[in-house]
């Protein structure tokens, strides 16, 4: 088990380093940092001086190791936009908005997804089942940028129930969380429905029925418990979907999180911020998968023996 754990940690680190290399190479191609930093009246001498200061005259691999070394010390450089903010501080200041949105979205999708999945499974073949399955199909097919705009149109512009966009109290969370969560909600619903159906036709549920247990007890204690394991194994994917989905959703709703920061910095070719934000998102992405792996290890004893 320890060996397995060490292997997974090493893999996560390699993934992160690889991503840092990709980001480094891309952001060197994205924009000429010198051109961005110089004012229009700068002379050729100013240019050369800046190239030397930034270390851009050194070979690429040396620049990469300097970048990596600085990054490990928390130094990602400064934003090239007017504010010249520290890139890492900027990203960290946007993190709470993103995490709270993803947290709200994940919580509501888990609760609602399990409820709907169980409902569809125990009413299999009825109209309720059909309705849930249609909703799940729709949720997996609607692109979030369009869904967000439509929700704004109906609930904010037309009905005036909720704010159109921006960051604030609980009301501000409803539409973005719904938009961010719908795809995952559909996935959880389908997953729970399928594994509930399987569990309900299994031997141990038949046995529980023969023993005369009430239907509620059969469904909740015996079938549901086993149906939730696949949900746990997919949690990493769900969380990852939300982190990356945030780029689109936060842009649509003007949400001040790292997703929107990623979009804005890429558009502005602000390469120190791009590097930082992409690396932070990737780190979360990898961390989420790692945690789920460990959770799975804790749930399934066979994995422990094999690892």
């Amino acid at each position, binding site marked *: 088990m320890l060996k397995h754990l060490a292997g997974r940690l090493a893999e996560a680190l390699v993934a992160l380093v690889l991503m840092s290399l990709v980001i480094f190479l891309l952001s060197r191609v994205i924009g000429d940092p010198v051109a961005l930093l110089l004012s229009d009246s700068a002379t050729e001498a100013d240019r050369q001086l800046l190239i030397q200061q930034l270390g851009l005259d050194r070979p690429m691999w040396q620049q990469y190791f300097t970048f990596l070394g600085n990054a490990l010390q928390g130094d990602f450089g400064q934003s090239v936009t007017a504010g010249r903010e520290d890139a890492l501080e900027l990203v960290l200041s946007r993190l709470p908005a993103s995490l709270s949105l993803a947290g709200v979205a994940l919580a509501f999708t888990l609760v609602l997804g399990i409820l709907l999945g169980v409902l569809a499974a125990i009413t299999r073949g009825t109209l309720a089942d059909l309705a849930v399955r249609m909703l799940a199909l729709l949720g997996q097919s609607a692109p979030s*940028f369009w869904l967000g*705009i439509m929700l704004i149109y109906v609930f904010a512009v037309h009905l005036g129930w909720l704010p159109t966009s921006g960051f604030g109290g609980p009301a501000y969370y409803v539409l973005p969380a719904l938009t961010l969560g719908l795809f995952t909600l559909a996935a959880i619903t389908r997953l729970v429905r399928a594994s509930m159906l399987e569990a309900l036709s299994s031997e141990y549920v038949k046995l529980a029925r023969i023993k005369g247990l009430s239907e509620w007890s059969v469904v909740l204690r015996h079938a549901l418990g086993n149906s939730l394991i696949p949900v746990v194994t997919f949690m990493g994917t769900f969380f990852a979907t939300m982190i990356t989905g945030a780029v689109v959703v936060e842009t649509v709703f003007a949400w001040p999180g790292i997703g929107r920061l990623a979009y804005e910095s890429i558009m502005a070719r602000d390469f120190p911020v791009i590097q930082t934000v992409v690396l932070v998102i990737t780190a979360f992405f990898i961390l989420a998968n790692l945690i789920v792996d460990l959770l799975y290890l804790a749930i399934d004893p066979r994995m422990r023996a094999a690892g």
Partner: protein
Amino acid sequence: MTRDLSFKLALGLLVVFVLVALFGPYLLEHDPLRGSLRARLDPPAWAEGGSAEHLLGTDRLGRDVLARIVQGARISLAVCLVVIAIAGSIGTALGTFSGYVGGWVDRVLMRLVDLALSLPVILLALLFAAVVGPSFLNIVIVISMVLWSQYARMSRGETLRVKNEDYVDLARTSGLGHVAIIFRHVLPNIAPSLIVVATLQVGVVIVLEASLSFLGVGVPPPNPSWGGMVAEGRSYIVTAWWVSALPGIAIVLVVMAVNVVGDALTDRINPGLRGRGA
């Protein structure tokens, strides 16, 4: 029974999508790129103030929304076909090679695939797209670069399954070369599973292309990409909802149809794969 019905409906919808993409542009009188300033933001025919002249209304520049959606179908279909051809051949070549050769080559290649699968797709696509700039060729390359790994994993697993079958052993002992074995015996036998992956990916590609176009790094204007049209209509959603809403409905319908067909194929060809893929 309802399953069969929904499968047929979805398949019918996909056929319509392909036919519209292929022949639609020749049947319409309006030019998707040229608008009329006298007909800006005209509502659809059924809404108040609409006319039969523009069945689905017009956009900010007076361009016919129906003509643009039809032209957009062609762009979506083209992106799908090219991406699946590129990502599919790269992924399949690597995966089949990896599974067939085995040993440390296989281990190294599969680690790479795992890594590729563990990176955030849309962020990578956005980064690449911002670097290379918006164009049809670039968007196709970008999406292929983030989607090849699924074919690699699938074809590798399937190759492992197939390569120890009796008929492959027989071919080997009868003196057939490795390349011939791969092309004559391995690839035809793993093709059905790859077709399932490709079908499920059609939806992923359409949504990814639309998202990138929405964010302004996809198919460049004035070409009518569905995602780009939703983005253009966003700023006047209050007065002209149809500009954003209708191309989005086109996306939802096609992706829904693809998902239904993909699920049905998964059930028929390779039931072990349920829940994976997209």
